[in-house]
C-alpha cells in the first residue's frame, strides 16, 4: 500500500511535466494546426532561463591574487559575487531563490521567443504539409540546442532548490499511516501544485475570458471567426507565445528535479508527442489526462514486483499504452474526429 501510494506520488510529478509540455503542444496544434517539433526546445530554453538567472546572480568580480598561485603556476583568481557586494544579505536570499526568481525572467522571455518564432518562421508554414512543419521545427530545435550547448557546454548544470523547499514532507502522517513511511520531497510537491495551477489558469483563461472565447471559436472554425472581422491571427500568435511560456515555466521549475542540459528538450520530445496523441490531437483536457496517466503508469511499471514478472516493462510501458489506446480509441482518449488523420 505504501509503495503504491508512493508510486502514485512519483507519477504525479512526472505526469505534471508531461502534461505541461503536452498542453502547450496541443494548444499550438489546436490553434495554428502546426506540429511543433521545437516544443521540447522551448522547455529546454525555459530550464536554461533558470541557469542564466543563477549565473547572473552569482556573477563574480574576478581579481588576480598577488600572492596565491594555481597549481599550474598562473596567479589564482579571487572571486566575490557582485550580488552580495550590492545587496548584502538580500543578495544571498535572491541567490538562494534563484529558481523562483527566474520565473520573472522566463515569462517575458518565453513570450518573446514564442512570438518571434511564430511570426518569423511558423506563420509561413500554416499551409505547408505537416511533414515540412516537422522538418523545419526539428531543424530549429537542433539549432536552438546547439546554441545552448556552445554557451553552457554539454554537462548538466546543477540547480539546487531553495533550502526552505528542499526537505521532505511526510504524507503518511497526514493520511493516517505510520509516520515516516510515505515521505516525499517538498519540491516535487511544489512542482505538482505549480503545474496544477498553470493548467487551471490556462483553462480558466480559455473558458472565462472573452479573449479565450474568441480563441476557442477560432479553433473550431477559423474562417468564420475571421469573417466576423476579428483578427484571429493576432490572437493565435499570442496563444503560441502562451504555449511557449507554459513550456518554459515547466522547464524552469523542473531544473531542481533533473539537472538541465542542452539535450533535455529532445529527451522529452518523443514522450510529449506520445502524450498528445494518446490524449487526442487538439484536445486540451486529453493532453493533461494522458500526461498524468502515462506518468503514473510509468511509475507503476518500474516497481520491482512488476519488473520481475515482465522484465523491461518499465522501458516500453508508455509505448504499449500508446498502441493500445490508439487501437482501441482511434482518436486518442478525447480527440475529435478528422483531426490529423490525413
Amino acid at each position, binding site marked *: 500500500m505504501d509503495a503504491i501510494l508512493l508510486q502514485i506520488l512519483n507519477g504525479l510529478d512526472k505526469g505534471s511535466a508531461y502534461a505541461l509540455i503536452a498542453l502547450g503542444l496541443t494548444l499550438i496544434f489546436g490553434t495554428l494546426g502546426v506540429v511543433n517539433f521545437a516544443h521540447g526546445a522551448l522547455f529546454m530554453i525555459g530550464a536554461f532561463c533558470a541557469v542564466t538567472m543563477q549565473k547572473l546572480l552569482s556573477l563574480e568580480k574576478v581579481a588576480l591574487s598577488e600572492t596565491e598561485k594555481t597549481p599550474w603556476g598562473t596567479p589564482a583568481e579571487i572571486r566575490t559575487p557582485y550580488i552580495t557586494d550590492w545587496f548584502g544579505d538580500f543578495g544571498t536570499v535572491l541567490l538562494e531563490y534563484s529558481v523562483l526568481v527566474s520565473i520573472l525572467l522566463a515569462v517575458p522571455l518565453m513570450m518573446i521567443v514564442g512570438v518571434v518564432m511564430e511570426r518569423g518562421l511558423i506563420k509561413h508554414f500554416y499551409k505547408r504539409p505537416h511533414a515540412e512543419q516537422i522538418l523545419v521545427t526539428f531543424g530549429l530545435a537542433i539549432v536552438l540546442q546547439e546554441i545552448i550547448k556552445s554557451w553552457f557546454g554539454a554537462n548538466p548544470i546543477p540547480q539546487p532548490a531553495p533550502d526552505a523547499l528542499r526537505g521532505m514532507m511526510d504524507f503518511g502522517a497526514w493520511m493516517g499511516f505510520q509516520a515516516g513511511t510515505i515521505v516525499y520531497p517538498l519540491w516535487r510537491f511544489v512542482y505538482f501544485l505549480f503545474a496544477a495551477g498553470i493548467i487551471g489558469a490556462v483553462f480558466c483563461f480559455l473558458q472565462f475570458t472573452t479573449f479565450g472565447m474568441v480563441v476557442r471559436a477560432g479553433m473550431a472554425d477559423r474562417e468564420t471567426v475571421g469573417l466576423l472581422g476579428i483578427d484571429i491571427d493576432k490572437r493565435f500568435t499570442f496563444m503560441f507565445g502562451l504555449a511557449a511560456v507554459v513550456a518554459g515555466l515547466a522547464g524552469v521549475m523542473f531544473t531542481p528535479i533533473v539537472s538541465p542540459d542542452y539535450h533535455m528538450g529532445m529527451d522529452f520530445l518523443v514522450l510529449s508527442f506520445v502524450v498528445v496523441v494518446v490524449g487526442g490531437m487538439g484536445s486540451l483536457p486529453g493532453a493533461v489526462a494522458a500526461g498524468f496517466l502515462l506518468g503514473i503508469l510509468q511509475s507503476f511499471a518500474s516497481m520491482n514486483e512488476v519488473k520481475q514478472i515482465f522484465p523491461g516493462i518499465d522501458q516500453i510501458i508508455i509505448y504499449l499504452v500508446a498502441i493500445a489506446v490508439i*487501437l482501441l480509441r482511434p482518436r486518442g482518449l478525447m480527440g475529435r474526429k478528422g483531426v490529423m488523420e490525413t
Partner: protein
Amino acid sequence: MLEKLRNNDTAIMLAFTAMVLLGPIILAPFGAGYPDLLQRFAIFGIFAVGFNILFGLTGYLSFGHAAFLGIGSYMAVWSFKLLSMSVIPAIILAVLLSGLFALVIGYVSLRRSGIYFSILTLAFAQMCYNLAYSVLTPITNGETGLKVLSSDPRILDGASEGLPLPSVLGLRMIDTWRGSFLGMDVQFNVGFYFCAVILIIAFYISLRIFRSPFGLMLRAIRTNQARLNYTGINTRPYALTAFVISGMYAGLAGGLMACTDPLAGAERMQWTASGEVVLMTILGGVGTLIGPVLGAGFIKYFENIFSKINDNVLSGFLDFLPETLREGVVWVMGAFVGEGWHLTLGLLFMIIVIFLPGGLVEGFNRIIAWFSRPKGGDKATARVPAE
C-alpha cells in the same frame, strides 16, 4: 532533346548506373571517395529509396523504419554466426525477416492514419530499440552490439582460420584496390560495388513501381483515400504492400550494413535513426525518384566530413589570410564544423525546407530552369517536377 531524356526510363537508369559505379572517382575530389562513406551512401540510398515508396507514394509517414534496418542487421549477423560468412544468405534472410516484421507492424499500424499511424510505428520501433538495448541482450548483445566471433558454428562454412570476414564469391567485402587517378587517391572497394549493384537494382525496382498501376494506386491513396474507399476499393492491402516493400528495403539496407561492417548495434533502431531517413527523403525531394538518394548522400556527407574539420584543418584551408584575420575567421567557422556540425545541419534543414520545399531536386530543377531560360528572357520555363 534533354527534355525527352528526362522522361526516358532507360536514360535515367543508364545515367544513374554510371553515376553510382563511378562514385569512387566522382566523389574523390570532395574527400568522400573512401570505401566506408561510399558504402554508407549506397546503403542509406537504398534505405531512403525504400522509405520513399511508402512515404512518397502513399503519404503514410512512418517514424519507425529504423526498426526494420536494425532487424535486418541482427538477422544478417546471426546468419554470419550460424550459417556462413557468405553475404548472399545473410541478405536474403535479412530481407525476409524484416519483411515479416513489417507485415505484422504494418498490419496493426495501418488501421490508423495520419499522425496516429506515425505514433504507432514510432512506438513499435522504440519498443524494439529499448528491448534490444537491455532485456534482449542474449539475442542482440545489447550496448556492445552483436559481433561475429571466430568460434561461431557457421554450419555451411566448416572450420576456417583467422578472423571471419563477410565475402561474396570469394571476394572479401573489405578488399580494396587503391590507385591514383589524375593525382587523386581513388579506392575501389568490393563492399562498395556490391552495395552499388544492389542500389541500382533497388532503384530500378522503385522506378518500376513508380511507373506501374500499383504505383498509381498508391498515389491515389495519398491524394484521396476516402474517395477510393467510396468507390469500393479496399486500400489497405495496397498500403500494406507498400509498407512491407519499404520495410524489406530497410531490412536490405540493414543487412548490407552488417555485410560491410559485421557489427549490429541497437542504436540504429532509435527514433533519431528513423527520423534521419525521413529527413533524407524530404531533403532530397519526397516522391521523386532520385531525391532520396541525394538526401541520403547529403546527410551522410555532413555527418562524416563536416564533423572531421577541426581548427587545425581550417587554418590549413585559410593559409592565405593574414594571421590575425585568420584566427577570427577560424573561430567563427569553427562554430559550424567539427563539434558544431549539428548546428550546420540544423540550419541547412531549415534553409532547404523554407526555400526549397521540393528538396534538393527542386533546387536542381530551378538551376536548370534558370540556365535554360530562353535568350529573349521574357518568361522562365516554369517546370513542375516530373514526379
